[in-house]
């Protein structure tokens, strides 16, 4: 295989890791609350912007910045749970309001961030890593890519462990399988919902912090990443962690390999076309069995 393609695949896995962190956020929240949180991309954007604020504006050390970014994004995610989602969890099955409410929340957060950031072009965010690429034979990649993919893998491993081993994780899985039965079993579904938003917020924060040096401080990226994260899910199959992981990595690779041959300006368009094709051929995605119909 052409070395350019191999390098593109490696780059694709790193990009896919970013989509994966957003896709996991969707999945965790959906399994805990049956709500598709459209603001997930905006939370990711918030992570990027907070990193910019801590590292570039305030010149805080990396360790402090990480804490501030994660705490900040998780806090906003929990606010969303309290203000936007909880009213809908109280009265189940009422139309499409919740979806629009999460979109509204995303709009508000983005508007506030743009307001605070001001009207100037995106600026780079300092990276803690050396900028020189790593060469292994003819394959080369950057430390940044290693960090991105590493963060994604770490989050996945932690979540698998959490779901499988801890009591709370098992309660979350039970809630995902059957909300009513979980409630009858004495699981506090409200706490599960908070926990889901906390985990999703942390995942978005990690994603934002890790990617900030590549994407720069651009407060308008939220919606784009929200959509790419969703496409990753739709490709892999909605509702399962496995689907989210495979879909995200696959999408990243397809995108980067396409860039080798095609015009990179159409990158997102290609993802959307891919989404449409998958919906036509196999609407439930590669691993999907779940009907994403209950709105």
């Amino acid at each position, binding site marked *: 295989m052409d070395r350019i393609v191999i390098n593109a695949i490696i780059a694709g896995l790193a990009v896919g890791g970013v989509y994966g962190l957003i896709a996991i956020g969707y999945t965790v929240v959906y399994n805990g609350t049956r709500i*598709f949180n*459209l603001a997930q991309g905006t939370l990711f954007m918030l992570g990027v912007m907070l990193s910019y604020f801590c590292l570039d504006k305030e010149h805080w050390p990396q360790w402090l910045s990480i804490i501030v970014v994660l705490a900040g994004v998780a806090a906003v995610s929990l606010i969303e749970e309290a*203000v*936007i989602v909880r*009213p*809908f969890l109280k009265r189940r099955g*009422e*139309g*499409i*309001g*919740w*979806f*629009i*409410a999460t*979109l*509204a*929340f995303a*709009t*508000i957060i*983005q*508007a*506030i961030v*743009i*307001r605070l950031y001001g009207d100037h072009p995106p600026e780079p965010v300092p990276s803690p890593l050396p900028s020189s690429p790593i060469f292994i034979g003819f394959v080369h990649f950057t430390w940044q890519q290693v960090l991105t993919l590493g963060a994604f893998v770490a989050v996945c491993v932690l979540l698998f462990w959490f779901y499988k081993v801890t009591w709370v994780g098992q309660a979350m899985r039970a809630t995902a399988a059957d909300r009513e039965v979980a409630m009858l079993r004495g699981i506090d579904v409200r706490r599960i919902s908070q926990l889901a938003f906390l985990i999703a917020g942390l995942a978005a924060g990690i994603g934002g912090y890790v990617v900030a040096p590549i994407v720069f401080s651009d407060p308008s990226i939220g*919606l*784009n990443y929200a*959509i790419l994260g*969703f*496409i990753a899910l*739709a490709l892999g199959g909605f509702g399962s962690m496995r689907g989210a992981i495979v879909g995200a990595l696959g999408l990243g690779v397809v995108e980067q390999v396409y860039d080798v041959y095609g*015009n990179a*300006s*159409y990158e*997102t*368009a290609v993802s*959307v076309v891919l*989404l*449409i*094709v998958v*919906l*036509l051929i196999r*609407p*439930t995605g590669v691993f999907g069995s779940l*009907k*994403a*119909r*209950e*709105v």
Partner: protein
Amino acid sequence: MKTRTGRNRREMIVLGVIFAALFLLPLLNNNTFRLQQYEYIVAVTLVAIGLNIVVGYAGQLVLGPGGIFGIAGYAAAVFANDHPSDADLILLCLLGLVAASVAGLIIGAPALRVGGFYLGMATLAIAVIVPSVASVMNLTGASTGISLLSNLEFSPKLGGVGLYELCVGVLVIAAVWSWLLLHSRVGHRFQALANSEDLAASLGVIGFRTKLLAFVLSAWPAGVGAAIYVYTQQFFVPDSADPNLSIYVLAACIIGGVGSVLGPILGSLVVFGINEFLGGLAQWQDIVFGVLLAGFAILCPEGIVGLIDGTGTRTLTLPPALDPRRLLNTRRTAVDHGEVTPRRHRAPATTPVTLDAELAPSSRETPSLNVSRVSKTFGAVRAVDDVSLTVAPGTVHALIGSNGSGKTTVLNLISGFYRIDGGQITLGEARLDRMSAGRVAHLGIARTFQAPKLILRQTLLENVAGAASIQGGGHDLGSVLRTPAGIRAARHANEVARDALEETGLGDFAHELVARLPHGLRRLGEVARALAVSPSLLLLDEPAAGLTHSELESLDAVIRRAAARGTGVLLVEHNVPFVFRLAEEITVLHLGQVISTGTPEQIRGDDAVAEAFLGSQRELIGDVVPPPAGRISSVVKEAGRG
């Protein structure tokens, strides 16, 4: 005709005032710049009218109306730029409409295969990539877009106030069309779908096709709006279809009130009026709209229109006449004094005899239903195991059994909601087990649901008439355009609905909003809706649960009359005395299997039934006067569990 008509009239008056104000707006200020701003608002209001059709009427989650708007806008702009001398407003509008329809089909078909939030995200994705792709394509003028101003050959024949008034005229037409659509059989299908997919399927609505129709119809006003945008603003650039436009239009619909004709128009004027004319707000604008959008979505889902009407608030206070305590008193008196004549409901005997002709199964010959050796497994549970039964036309066949014995599953298998795992179900020659629920309904099989699936924001009459018009004859186009045939069909549906309501004793409540009705009346309303489609086979899922004494009497008479007209009735019911009085034949299910079939006398004497199902409470079957439903069914349930 109080509640609903008053509401309609108020809506008409407000719309009239709005349109009059729009027509007179140039008196206020008619310089070119202002007129162009007004025309822009008209264009985006058209998009909002379109979005309301798919989101409000049909209940489908579309978030990106700007995508279709962008595609149609570029189509119109590219055409006008290439053929400047041909490009008049009408041609551009037609072009926009066609482009929007095609785009709607291409986007809608895959996105609707999964539906739900998939549709929302897919449409949003389109709304995001249309401007981003257009900004790199040469065809669409890349990042600078297409400017007709700089095209010297493009000289619009219309301009100034005349053009603006024409645009408002188009807006009025779109509003009228939207109203006609809502109150046609197409609109009824959309609303049934929005309320519940199961309800829609039980009325013969094919879900995917109907959703796609709603999606494509919603693209029409967006396409026309895009053409008006191109003609009046004389440019189309990537920013014209910015993703924010989608969010503003959505905000307009939600804030104004989704699902009504007025709502999106009102909301659009508010949202885009603020957007265009309150410059000082600009920096806070997105935050304000976001807060408004979230606030309305959470607290007042029916928008400003709902606030005005008072239906937006969720507290549904019963009118004094419907106070459940009074109904309760009625029942107690009836039982205490041995009275049989119901007080509040019209006695079934007084209903005119002419009804029979109206509600008789329409000219369809009425074949028997045959369920033979049918099985259904859920995971490890064999819910229905080798069940056979026959319902002959004009007879009442009851299906009884304890909770979880598989009664409702059998009903769902017959009506096409579940696929069978073995056996076969036929109606005459037709293999029901190979059909979708919608197709089954087309054969004249009507059903009710255990939990009433009436549309809460409509009156009882609108619910029943809607079902009748969906299932009745007539052409969709005729129904929307109000051709003589269309009007006749609508009138007929209304009459049939009225008769069905009279027959179930609900005549007095025809114009009451369902949301205000107590449970028992809703249950009877379910039966009325099923009757209104003149079914050849009627499947009733626990119609008697929770009914008062007088309501039970009504129900009994209704079922007898339906059978007398030749309709086969399959009755799933826990109220054993009710069943034994009514049914010609009874099938008893236990743990998914038929343990006995026969006439009420045979079942009464069957020891297996007594053993497995009725336990020591056998003497209750002999009761002639039905005791309150709740008690007997709980006795039976307990017996079944033991």
